[in-house]
């Protein structure tokens, strides 16, 4: 009895799941309307053009299929001989014109509205780089990097069942937090290659172009979490740099700002303390591995083998085995004309010292060199 009930329950559950799947699938057939005024208008325009195109398709294909059925040789053995009609041709040139004008008018209006980023309540600078987003709140002295939420990308995919997680590839370590009902202007740019910042439910998509700053905006009426992805091919891990925007009430936003500022002060203090002391090898190596796996391994690989020739190997490399000063220089300042980014501002002095020490001693490099946070400070001071 109990088994039968269990079976029945699981069958109903399965049926329910299948039904909800069908319902879900039909909902997934269309564009998501989104939550902002502009996204809803874009959705309406999308629906309008879908219906116009559907009507045209029904008429044109309808006539065609009528002809296919009734004007085949078995039904119509003698073909007509006409092959020209100025009137008809004029009509079917004019009608599409009128339809297109009707479609263009609302499109022009919406486009002008979407491109008007004037009078914002606050501004956030968004910088894309391989393969993360850097958010800088221009009015609040807050900035942070936003990475795919996983300690290390390649290992991430080896975890069984990871792809079944609901927010697989759409989750980040640090979300962009913005207040509801405020016009937020985004200033979008990039450090290396072109990226594109897209959140479908806000109908905001803007290319992040190195050397140029693009402007766009949103005003979200409803608190919630909205997810998107990079939409311009930006190299190996292009599919792995999600965008997550958390929209909160104004009060929550103020609290968040206060908390972030406290955290920043604490972090600055901790970094200063960490930099002031001398680190032993084990600690440097431990922090170095953590930092390396998070920041460097995407290109140079966890085992230091790199992906030559674009991303050199770390093992026995002349840079790693050579003078420590050059090594510090390339990590802090990057290298112009190559894909090596500058990490001087992204990492604390302790992390920089640790990662350089790690690279000089891991994978059998064993130089025995210890780079201390103080060395980094000295380098930066003389820089």
């Amino acid at each position, binding site marked *: 009895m109990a088994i039968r009930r269990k079976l029945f329950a699981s069958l109903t559950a399965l049926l329910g799941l299948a039904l909800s799947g069908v319902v879900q699938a039909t909902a997934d057939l269309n564009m998501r309307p989104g939550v902002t005024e502009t996204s809803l208008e874009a959705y309406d325009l999308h629906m309008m*053009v879908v219906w116009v195109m559907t009507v045209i398709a029904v008429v044109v294909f309808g006539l065609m299929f009528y002809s296919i059925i009734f004007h*085949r040789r078995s039904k119509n053995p003698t073909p007509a001989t006409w092959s020209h009609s100025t009137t008809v041709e004029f009509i079917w040139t004019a009608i599409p014109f009128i339809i297109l004008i009707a479609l263009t008018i609302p499109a022009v209006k919406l486009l002008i509205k979407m491109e008007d980023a004037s009078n914002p309540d606050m501004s956030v600078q968004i910088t894309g780089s391989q393969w993360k987003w850097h958010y800088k709140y221009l009015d609040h002295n807050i900035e942070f990097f936003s990475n795919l939420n996983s300690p290390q990308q390649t290992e991430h995919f080896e975890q069984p069942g990871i792809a079944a997680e609901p927010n697989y590839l759409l989750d980040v370590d640090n979300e962009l937090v913005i207040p509801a009902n405020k016009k937020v202007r985004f200033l979008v740019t990039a450090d290396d290659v072109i990226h594109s910042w897209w959140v479908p439910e806000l109908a905001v998509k803007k290319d992040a172009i190195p050397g140029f700053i693009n402007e766009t905006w949103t005003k979200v009426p409803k608190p919630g979490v909205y997810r998107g992805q990079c939409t311009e091919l930006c190299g190996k891990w292009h599919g792995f740099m999600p965008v997550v925007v958390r929209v909160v009430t104004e009060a929550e936003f103020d609290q968040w700002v206060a908390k972030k500022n406290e955290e920043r002060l604490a972090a600055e203090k901790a970094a200063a303390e960490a930099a002031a002391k001398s680190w032993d090898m084990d600690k440097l190596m431990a922090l170095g591995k953590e930092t390396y796996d998070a920041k460097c391994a995407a290109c140079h690989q966890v085992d230091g083998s790199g*992906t*030559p020739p674009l991303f050199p190997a770390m093992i026995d490399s002349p840079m790693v085995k050579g003078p420590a000063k050059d090594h510090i220089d390339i990590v802090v300042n990057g290298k112009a004309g190559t894909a090596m980014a500058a990490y001087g501002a992204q990492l604390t002095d302790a992390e920089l010292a640790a990662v350089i020490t790690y690279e000089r001693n891991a994978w059998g490099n064993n130089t025995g060199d210890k780079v201390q946070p103080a060395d980094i400070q000295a380098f930066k001071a003389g820089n």
Partner: protein
Amino acid sequence: MADHHPTGIKRWLFTTNHKDIGSMYLWFSFIMFLVGGAMAMVIRAELYQPGLQFVDPNFFNQMTTMHGLIMVFGAVMPSMVGLANWLIPMQIGAPDMALPRMNNWSFWILPFAFAMLISSLFMEGGAPNFGWTFYAPLSTTYAPPSTDFFILGVHMMGISSIMGAINVIVTVFNMRAPGMTLMKMPLFVWTWVITAFLLIMVMPVLAGAVTMMLTDRHFGTDFFNAAGGGDPVMFQHIFWFFGHPEVYIMILPAFGVASEIIPAFARKKLFGYSSMVYATASIALLSFVVWAHHMFTVGMPVAGELFFMIATMLIAVPTGVKVFNWVATMWQGSMTFETPMLFAIAFVILFTIGGFSGVMLAMAPVDFQYHDTYFVVAHFHYVLFPGAIFGTTAAVYYWLPKWTGKMYNEKLGKAHFWISMLFVNLTFFPMHFSGLAGMPRRIPDYNMMFADFNQLASIGAFGLGLSQLLFLGIVIATIRGGKKAEDKPWDGATGLEWDQLPCPAPYHTFDTPPKVN
């Protein structure tokens, strides 16, 4: 005149005969079609389900890049040039192409260009991995060393295309039989001559783009490097100034094919011949002023976006005229549905579906939502596969008796059509939905919410890929042991090649120009 020509490999190496060269182009394009298709299979296998299963993301990017480049430059374009070589001289009553040695050269460049491009897969650092649109600076500062092979390969393809285009133009303007006025030319010739003008105008622009890439990479220039005062967006403007007309280069000859086949099987003259010519010319002209609709999200001024949006939507008018004319040609005709006609009708319907999504993409404020998603992938595959490739396939079935003197197996031909029709839609239609749901293009892995559509598309793609082997089998079987074709296998076919030449067409045709009434 006897068919004097060397035999064996020398015949093919040294030939200046338009029919030989046409055949080589067609076989070459089919081989490239299979190579590019195999890469598509790798892509679809990886995308069959979420998670990384088969390939590393970098190799995935190499596959999308090479698939695009090979299909565009290796499969579709040479197939159109192959058709041009075979058909244009016969259709205008000329003995051969005007510049036969150049014709030989423009073909023989291609195998080397593609050997060079494909060899980059085996180089250190891998093949080009920046997408077939090769946006800077991903394709300059951040690109693998094999990019230089890609650049030289593109230069060689460009030279080949330009020479092919010059040949078509010179042939059509100088070698028409007496009485073959421009407005009497078959529509295939018209669409090709317009295509040839597009080619000679935009291929040098592409050559300029890759040359600037080369100097940026090796000679210290900064055309596309913002840090040196250059502009990465300028690359996109230059690329798409080539790239948009390129789209029509790939589709206009297929328009011409449909305009030959539909009247033949409807047994009724093509409706609105002159408006077809003018519509083709307007599409070609408009194609030069719409390029930035590929770039609505790069941050153009609103005025620019408005201009490109409106100009793009205008293209729907002449394209609509063409579709209406094909339907009107069928109207009150006396149709039969042999394989070429089936492919031609499917071409009209599915190309038009691609046109509908094209109008949607033209509307800038909604394009922000479609741009760089699978919706775009669905759109351009609809105009390219059931558009350009179905057009070529229809042409092959239609003119195969003329080329080989043999008939293909009609049952198998129809089977090929219906299987292709099923799978082409199963592959590409779900991509509209994954795009609308928010799936970006060119990603090797995705969230569970896109899984169903990707699985369908992958199943479709495997079927579509396999069904093209059936096509290969049908063509080989026809050449080797097909039934002998009558001189006029299609009773509704018109034109010099059907009215005045036997099947197969002799090695040399129209040594004395035919009379055109």
